[in-house]
């Protein structure tokens, strides 16, 4: 079946809308909340208020770009999990209201499932199984995509997300927000020759930890206060090299372990050039393709939400999504530890759309 869907994404600081038909993107509009740059982070109150101010405009823009009228829609989709509660509410309530008014289905979508399936936006014939690395300011996870509607969580971060490590190390170096791109730029002129830890690199599990790296950089700065931009560039380059090496090594290890045909990079950190380059170079020796979706599909966007909604409708039809009783949930997934130690249990972490 083919469906025409208006998808809404407001889980964090992007107000985004997209129109998807037959799994193809007809339009993809993202209004980055630029005012955050002067605040130094994602500010929840501003985020939800700005979503509210922009959502109609962004949704109308998406429909106009796609050349689709409201009555041509089969369904409305929205991100319901995870994210900032106030921001999720704006998108979900907008979508529910529109669906109610149009008498259409409303499909709730997990934001991370959007990232996990974003490889299909880059390549509709994506070869499976695929290992997907989702790395952003809020999340770092490795996922085995077994079929278009089934995936397994291999591991996530125990503490800070990879993008959060970029942002916080950038803060320690006195760089502005968003820190990740600034750190990446500074790193270009530095040699990564400061020995910093590669947390959990030799651990066979697919978990990450970046909190200790942040502490190591803080300690290094205390002992060797940077005297020049060159000093700061060395530290930036060394920190970036440490983060990238762990991400690449774990992703390739997962690809080897599960016989992956493809590797997909998703989330804001996937836009990092060193990560892309390093992953591609090291994957060359294996028969695995590295897929990096276009930048507009790597960052938070509504097209990936529409794609997941389309796949859900293919599986169950619109009648399964007539009730508007679903709610938002700020948490990602429930992960459990093995007994008293820190390690998560992922064996039963297989999910179906």
């Amino acid at each position, binding site marked *: 079946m083919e469906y025409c869907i208006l998808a809404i994404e407001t889980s*964090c600081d992007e107000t985004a809308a997209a129109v998807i038909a037959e799994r193809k993107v007809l339009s993809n509009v993202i209004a980055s909340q630029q005012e955050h740059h002067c*605040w*130094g*982070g*994602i*500010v*929840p*109150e*501003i985020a*939800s208020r700005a979503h509210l101010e922009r959502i109609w405009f962004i949704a109308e823009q998406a429909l106009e770009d796609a050349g689709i009228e409201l009555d041509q829609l089969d369904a409305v989709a929205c991100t319901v999990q*995870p*994210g*900032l*509660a*106030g921001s999720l509410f704006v998108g979900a309530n907008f979508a529910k209201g529109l669906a109610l008014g149009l008498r259409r289905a409303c499909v709730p979508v997990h934001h991370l499932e959007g990232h996990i399936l974003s490889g299909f936006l880059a390549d509709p014939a994506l070869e499976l199984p695929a290992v997907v690395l989702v790395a952003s*300011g*809020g*999340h770092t996870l490795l996922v085995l995509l077994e079929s278009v509607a089934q995936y397994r969580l291999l591991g*996530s*971060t*125990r*503490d*800070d*997300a990879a993008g*959060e490590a970029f942002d*916080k190390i950038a*803060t*320690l170096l006195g760089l502005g927000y968003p820190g990740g791109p600034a750190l990446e730029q500074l790193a270009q002129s530095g040699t990564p020759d400061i020995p910093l830890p590669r947390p959990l690199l030799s651990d066979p599990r697919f978990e990450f930890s970046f*909190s*200790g790296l*942040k*502490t190591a*950089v*803080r*300690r290094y700065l*205390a*002992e060797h206060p940077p005297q020049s931009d060159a000093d700061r560039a060395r530290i930036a380059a060394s920190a970036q090299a440490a983060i990238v090496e762990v991400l690449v090594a774990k992703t390739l290890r997962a690809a080897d372990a599960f016989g992956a045909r493809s590797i997909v990079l998703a989330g804001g950190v996937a836009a990092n050039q060193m990560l892309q380059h390093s992953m591609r170079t090291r994957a060359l020796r294996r028969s695995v393709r590295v897929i990096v979706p276009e930048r507009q599909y790597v960052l938070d966007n509504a097209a990936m939400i529409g794609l997941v909604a389309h796949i859900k409708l293919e599986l169950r039809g619109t009648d399964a999504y007539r009730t508007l009783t679903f709610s938002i949930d*700020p*948490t990602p997934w*429930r*992960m*459990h*530890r093995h007994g*008293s130690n*820190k390690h*998560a249990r992922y064996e039963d972490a297989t999910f179906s759309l």
Partner: protein
Amino acid sequence: MTTTTSSMESEIYSSTSEDETHALAAHFASRLKKGDIVTLSGELGAGKTEFVRGICSYFDVEDIVSSPTFSIINVYTGRLRSGEPVRIVHVDLYRLKTKHELKTIGLEEWLALPDAIKLIEWPEKANGCLSRQHYHVEIRTLPGMDDRRQICIGAVGAACLGHAQK
């Protein structure tokens, strides 16, 4: 373990590793009861989240306790020694800039929950808005001392917290 928690006194511990911080936090957690609030101060990388993790392990929280910097508020379910379930609310105010934003994340409502234990990182961002009685944990890094930390635990407000009330 000292049980006096008058507003001026504070207990000082030292830790030489993450594991030790974790153990100290678990020991401290034994005095917490439903409704209590704990604020945690310390610079980036001092070990605030590690301390929270120690508290959570005392209450048998099974979820992975990760940084709530992105989500602002994480809620876990744990168990008191009696086996009774308890919610642990883990808040990180790092990204917040104005007092007004505290309202919109519902901080006051979370703090008022009588049946949850509330752990707040970066309380400085709530500057003056945390008027309720609470424990304050300060983790100090020592220059040139690598993993060594000085951990100060005090009570702010009144002496009706933890054991003192029993």
